[in-house]
């Protein structure tokens, strides 16, 4: 299964494109400005919960989240926080990596 990375927030449509084309069982990792989508209660929360319901695994890069002023307890339940070593491990554990630039 693929690892997808998304690095843009509300400003771009890359998260939409990613969630539309990611298959169940694949993992979407939110990095850089993409981490804002992982925060509870925003207008994107519904989309992310729906993605998880269809079997997509969601992760968020914790150093990027902390840099932007959000503690990991602000993250939507079910989204896993990882560090850079975790990012590397996710890339290793999936068959290939697709960056949604």
């Amino acid at each position, binding site marked *: 299964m693929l690892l997808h990375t998304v690095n843009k927030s509300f400003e771009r449509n890359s998260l939409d494109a990613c969630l539309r084309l990611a298959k169940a069982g694949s993992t979407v990792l939110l990095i*850089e400005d993409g981490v804002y989508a992982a925060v509870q209660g925003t207008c994107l929360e519904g989309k992310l919960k729906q993605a998880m319901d269809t079997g997509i695994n969601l992760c968020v890069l914790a150093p990027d989240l902390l840099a932007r002023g959000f503690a990991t307890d602000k993250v939507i339940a079910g989204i896993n926080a990882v560090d*850079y070593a975790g990012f*590397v491990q996710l890339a*290793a554990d999936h068959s*290939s990596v697709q*960056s949604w*630039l």
Partner: protein
Amino acid sequence: MKFGIQINEGPYQHQASDTAYQFTKAALENGHKVYRVFFYHDAVNNATRLAVPPQDDRNITKNWQALAKEYNLDMVVCIAAAQRRGLLDENEAKRQGKDASNIAEGFRISGLGQLIEAGIQSDRLVVFGD
């Protein structure tokens, strides 16, 4: 596992170069190999030796150089992208009739084939961009 890294954006302007650096560092520190870091598009500007970032800020070029030295990392700057943007080593400067070069030690200029080769030889290619 062997990783290949592609970067598309200039340093400082976008976080892509920083994230690529952190990823590469974490991969190496966790026992993985990095076959090559390929600097494409504006990312060729990672390789300038003329940058003087503020004292209290990171120096992205020096970070790459230190990592390359410690782990014998292959850092390749795309020649076509570099020519378009004014990044030259001494050979290129001579060949193009330019009076100065600006590539930092530890980076080498080469063709796009090196990116394809990184895709072939690495177990995973990871792209950082905007």
